[in-house]
């Protein structure tokens, strides 16, 4: 039993070994953070690198003649009659306008007319039609419009499509790209920030350049409102009951096991549940954010309950004793003293739970939210009720877009992931800041 080293400045063998082990342990910790950070960096860089392009979009600036003869034969400006002219009719006008423009600029091209026309997005005709129907006075004159360029042309200006790849590509040609370059030089084609990506609805497979996240963001927003309004209070309330009030018995054990088991239920099973209970039994609307939110609520509850219970458990009993001894009821002790101390853990559960809820696709599959939806859902309507309109969600859009054939969608999928992460960050900031405030040791 020799006393440890006499000098504090010199260390003996054992201390050196302990210090080395300390250093190793610390290095392990740092390495763990490093692994997490590295993984995050790799994932984020790849997402950012692939998705940044989604936030820029190429437009063709056109002056489009709007002949009365083809748009409103009767000349009555009767909306019903005008609506008879379909997008196919408007597409022809656009094509003509572009050809005229090229001719006016005296740009030589070997492209056939229909290949030149293919440089304009199919979406453009619909945009023009809506514009004209909203402004009938334009008929007979000209409309100045920036219309979307087709996906391959757009890709060319973002570097996704090259002359080399175009040579093998059945959907475009090097000539088309060269023409686009000349048009860009002539200031007819321009690439700029893409607000439409955040606001426009989804588009079909033929129009990657027109696809946007508007509907998905609204859908996700509505669902998160439902989740936040239900999962957090219900989860915390359930945890409080189980941890602070429920008598310790077989039943409470059963509930405890049951909740951790719910966490292991594959998310798609919650979809099965949602379809059976909310849609088939309760008759709620399919594809609606309300049902989606309810399903996600049930799915996130276990995460919130498990972390909240762990947090409640770690509050020292002396705090409860102190409050109880002052004549506070259990309820008061919990709400006044225990909950504030457990808040960081509860918020962590919320952060993780919401992240999970926001990023989940599988349960939405069965309740009809993995869908192609073009119309913006409104929060409340008399026919559909609260959050009853069909909508998609951000992860659904990611999932859908990664499955589509046109490579333009891959870029949009990454862009959607960036948006989703920003959405998540915004949603969680409050929780993160709050947690920071409540974190303290006692």
């Amino acid at each position, binding site marked *: 039993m020799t006393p440890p080293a006499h000098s504090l400045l010199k260390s003996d063998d054992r201390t050196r070994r302990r210090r080395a082990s300390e250093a190793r342990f610390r290095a392990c910790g740092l390495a763990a953070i490093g692994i997490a950070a590295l993984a995050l960096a790799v994932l984020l860089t790849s997402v950012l690198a692939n998705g940044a392009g989604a936030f820029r979009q190429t437009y063709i600036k056109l002056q489009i003649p709007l002949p009365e003869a083809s748009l409103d034969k009767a000349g009555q400006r009767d909306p019903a009659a005008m*609506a008879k002219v379909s997008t196919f009719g408007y597409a022809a006008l656009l094509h003509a306008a572009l050809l005229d423009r090229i001719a006016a600029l005296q740009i030589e091209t070997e492209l056939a007319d229909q290949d030149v026309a293919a440089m304009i997005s199919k979406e453009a005709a619909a945009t023009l039609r*809506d514009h004209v129907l909203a402004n009938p006075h334009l008929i007979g004159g000209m409309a100045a419009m920036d219309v979307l360029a087709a996906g391959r042309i757009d890709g060319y200006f973002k570097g996704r499509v090259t002359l080399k790849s175009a040579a093998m590509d059945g959907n475009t040609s090097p000539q088309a790209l060269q023409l686009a370059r000349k048009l860009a030089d002539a200031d007819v084609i321009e690439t700029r920030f893409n607000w439409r990506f955040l606001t426009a609805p989804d588009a079909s497979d033929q129009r990657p350049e027109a696809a946007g996240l508007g509907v998905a963001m609204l859908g996700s927003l509505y669902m998160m409102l439902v989740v936040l309004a239900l999962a957090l209070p219900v989860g915390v309330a359930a945890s409080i009951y189980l941890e602070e009030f429920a008598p310790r018995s077989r039943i409470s054990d059963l509930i405890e096991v049951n909740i951790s088991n719910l966490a292991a239920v594959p998310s798609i099973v919650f979809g099965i549940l949602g379809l059976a209970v909310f849609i088939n039994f309760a*008759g709620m609307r399919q594809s609606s954010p309300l049902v989606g939110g309810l399903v996600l609520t049930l799915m996130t509850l276990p995460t919130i309950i498990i972390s909240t219970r762990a947090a409640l458990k770690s509050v020292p009993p002396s705090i409860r004793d102190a409050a109880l001894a002052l004549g506070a009821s259990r309820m008061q002790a919990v709400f006044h003293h225990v909950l504030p101390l457990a808040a960081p853990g509860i918020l962590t559960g919320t952060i993780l739970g919401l992240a999970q809820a926001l990023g989940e696709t599988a349960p939405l599959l069965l309740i009809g939210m993995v*869908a*192609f939806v*073009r*119309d913006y859902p409104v929060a409340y309507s008399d026919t559909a009720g609260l959050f009853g309109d069909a909508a998609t969600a951000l992860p659904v859009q990611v999932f859908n877009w990664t499955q589509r054939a046109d490579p333009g969608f891959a870029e949009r999928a990454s862009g959607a992931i960036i948006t989703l992460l920003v959405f998540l960050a915004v949603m969680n900031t409050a929780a993160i800041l709050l947690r920071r405030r409540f974190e303290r040791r006692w």
Partner: protein
Amino acid sequence: AAARDNVQVAGSSTVLPYAAIVAEAFGENFDYPTPVIESGGSSAGLKRFCSGVGANTIDIANSSRAIKPPEMKICAENGVTGIVEVRIGYDGIVFASDINGNSFAFTPADWYLALAADLPVDGAMIANPNTNWNMIDTDLPDQSIKAFIPGTKHGTREVFEEKVLLQGCKDSGAMGAILQINGADEKAAEAACMAVRTDGLSVDIDGDYTETLARIEADPNGIGVFGLSFYENNTDRLQVATMSGVLPGTASIAAGDYPVSRPLYFYIKAAHLDEIPGLQEFTQFFVSDEIAGPDGPLAEYGLVSDPQLTATQDAVSNRALLGGM
């Protein structure tokens, strides 16, 4: 729940892109809301279709195969009695490999010999020894076999098994040999023809074609099975193989020269036709020449237009019910 004002469609993810193209155009040109097109597979779509009548059920089920009798029965049990079947066209199935790799010209027999679990050799079934394409046919490139074929959940798999493996089995004469070995058990022989090796040279893909493409890019020896439209959108990354000397394309498939394709359908719930605004118009718009014809946007996107489109149009207009119900 209150009545819906939008058309609700669910089902096959193969049909989804076509349905979305139509729905988009429909929404743009009609005063009805754009139909909501869900994906989730033919099975899930038909199941929801058959779950009953009413606003909280779907109006149309997309399917990459025809509805089956047991399904019809369940439909009927749930009160879904009037069903209109609509065949919208054909989906071509092509074999493609990395653009920078070797080119291939296949016959069904090549695929059978490459992927069969067991091959009949000298009167006995032995585990498939082929590991390289030129072991099957010296004309094929010297490249190890790595096939990415649709998983067993995909309708494409069924077509692949029947029209490629089984066909190849017959063409190569293996069918006869197997029948000899197993004592002329026709069913067992067919099953043996379509049994795929599990030693890793053939990889089932449960995901979609983008996954197959990604796998080929991660493993340039791979050859994948794709839908025609998917290939046509990615010609800068994939090169397609010929089958029995025919290059796949909408024309060669429509003409029946290219052997591997399958019909795509959707099913309309007749009871909803007069309840859901726009449903009748949408279905008619879908099969109109403008859309589904050989020059329409669907064909442009890779759907093989149905030569009997007119009959289909009539069926939709007359609400011809399936099974004479």
